[in-house]
């Protein structure tokens, strides 16, 4: 009978909390210190013209630097913000469809039970393992106009390649290509997990009806893996808004601002120009944009995501 009374005791919430607390303590501290408090402080900083150098907790500091919503107004009034937003959207519009198509292709290739498929899986995943910094350096070298691999390969087939990262028109498409190259293995494997969980009897039934490979792909595979595709779209869109290391290493926002994006601006305002208030306001705008986009995606999912398998 001892265990039973003990279990009943456990159900009493106060004692439960007492038991749970020591286990929760480290992560609760972390939540407070690394998430909740910074969030609140960031909101306050975004209302100031603080430069990041003066003592934050000095008396009168907040009154002295308080500027209300000026940072937000200035950001929305600046031409730069809209240019940066356009650049980010340009990246997203190119990146998301290309990434989705290549990852679907990767998943489709890896879903087949063919000889050598494990080798392909390892190879496709190597770009994912590489850090963004190393990958960006490698591609900076590959894309170097005169001495790089890509333009010299193109020259072999008689095409004169552009200046890529040094060319205002081609810099962003080049960043997109590199990002697709880096991410296709990652999202490909996520999509693969959705693809292999589809019940094979659907395909058998379709075969009996004389369906071809393409119609099977569009009529069965895509609809049945729509929840995974949805997940990939959510994650990749959030990641796309936070595009940063590849920009820093490959173009540093150039040429002529063609690859300036939101996080790059936040970083530079905060840590190069020491305008912490402005940078914080910028980061809140980014936060809100991400939330709105995620919300819209969630709302739209009913129309196309199919949860009954």
């Amino acid at each position, binding site marked *: 009978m001892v265990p039973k009374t003990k279990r009943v005791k456990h159900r009493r919430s*106060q004692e439960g909390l007492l038991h*749970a607390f020591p286990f929760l303590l480290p992560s609760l501290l972390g939540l407070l210190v690394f998430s909740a408090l910074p969030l609140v402080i960031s909101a306050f900083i975004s209302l100031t013209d603080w430069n990041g150098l003066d003592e934050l907790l000095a008396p009168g500091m907040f009154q002295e630097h308080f500027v209300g919503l000026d940072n937000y107004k200035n950001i929305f009034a600046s031409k730069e913000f809209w240019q940066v937003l356009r650049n980010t959207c340009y990246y997203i519009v190119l990146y998301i469809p290309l990434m989705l198509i290549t990852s679907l292709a990767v998943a489709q290739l890896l879903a087949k039970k063919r000889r050598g498929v494990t080798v392909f899986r390892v190879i496709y995943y190597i770009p994912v393992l590489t850090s963004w910094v190393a990958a960006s350096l490698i591609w900076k070298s590959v894309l170097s106009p005169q001495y790089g*691999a890509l333009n010299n390969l193109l020259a072999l087939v008689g095409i004169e390649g552009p200046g890529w990262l040094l060319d205002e028109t081609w810099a962003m498409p080049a960043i997109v290509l590199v990002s697709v190259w880096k991410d296709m293995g990652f999202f490909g494997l996520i999509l693969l997990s959705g693809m292999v969980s589809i019940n094979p009897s659907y395909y058998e039934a379709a075969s009996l009806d004389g369906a071809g490979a393409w119609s099977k792909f569009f009529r069965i595979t895509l609809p049945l893996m729509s929840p995974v595709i949805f997940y990939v779209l959510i994650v990749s869109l959030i990641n796309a808004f936070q595009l940063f290391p590849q920009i820093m290493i490959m173009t540093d926002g150039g040429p002529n601002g063609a690859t300036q994006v939101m996080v790059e601006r936040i970083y530079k305002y905060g840590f190069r120009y020491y305008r912490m208030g402005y940078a914080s306001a910028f980061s809140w705008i980014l936060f809100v944009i991400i939330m709105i986009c995620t919300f819209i995606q969630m709302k739209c999912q009913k129309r196309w995501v199919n949860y009954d398998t």
Partner: protein
Amino acid sequence: MTLKRKGSTLLYYAVAIAVAIVALVPFVWMVSTSLKSRGALMSIPIEWIPEEPTLDAYRTVFERFPFLRTVGNSLFISVTYTLITLLSASMAAFAFAKIRFRGSGVLLGLYLATMMIPTQVTMIPLFVVMNQIGLINHYSSVILPSIFRPFAVFMLVQQMRTIPGDYLDAARVDGASTFRIYRQVMLPLCAPTLATLAVTTFMESWNDYLWPLLMLTDRTKMTLPIALSTLNGQYNTEYNVLMAGSLISMIPIVLIYVFAQKYFQNGIIAGGIKG
């Protein structure tokens, strides 16, 4: 084999190999470039395979930069980061999954909600705090955030909920304390998930850029990605040096991948790694 099936096999391998080439060519280029001398970098026509391969670039990396130290920093930071994540997240997950207490659901929801906050929002206040308590250029500034990793908590809660309560009751009958149940029953049962998390967390920490960039500015304290980006500033067009550095930075993670492939796979399927 019919002609049609032969054709589809051929098509499959043609596409699969083409994708593999696209994935690998940049790395082949990296190796080739890293073995070139400074002069050979700018020879026209370019040398696809260096005519006089040399290890000069590797020597430069190690001589002009405390690169061995950097590799050590990266290893130390990533290993401790991973251990703390596993410990803290598994403890929290145990509380959420196996101890009934008031507000458990709300609190877990709060943990998950913080995943929505982009790091860019919290990084400025955190930088300020780290700066004022003098933790900049301390490893701990990069390691400490590992204590709160909501995604790891979420993954472990999912796993722990599938473990039947009977195991725990059996241990309780034997008089085991809650801590012993966690340590000696729960952790071993979660070993596969923990392994997956370990691999993915290690990789994230190893490749992390933005936060270490802010925290580690001293050349002797830098992690590999930060050191590489510093090299990028210094040797902007000396691609042999940059490629040598990149190649060295890739070795440990590729080795781990080869030995722990299975866990990487599970990690991705759970959505655990950021690209």
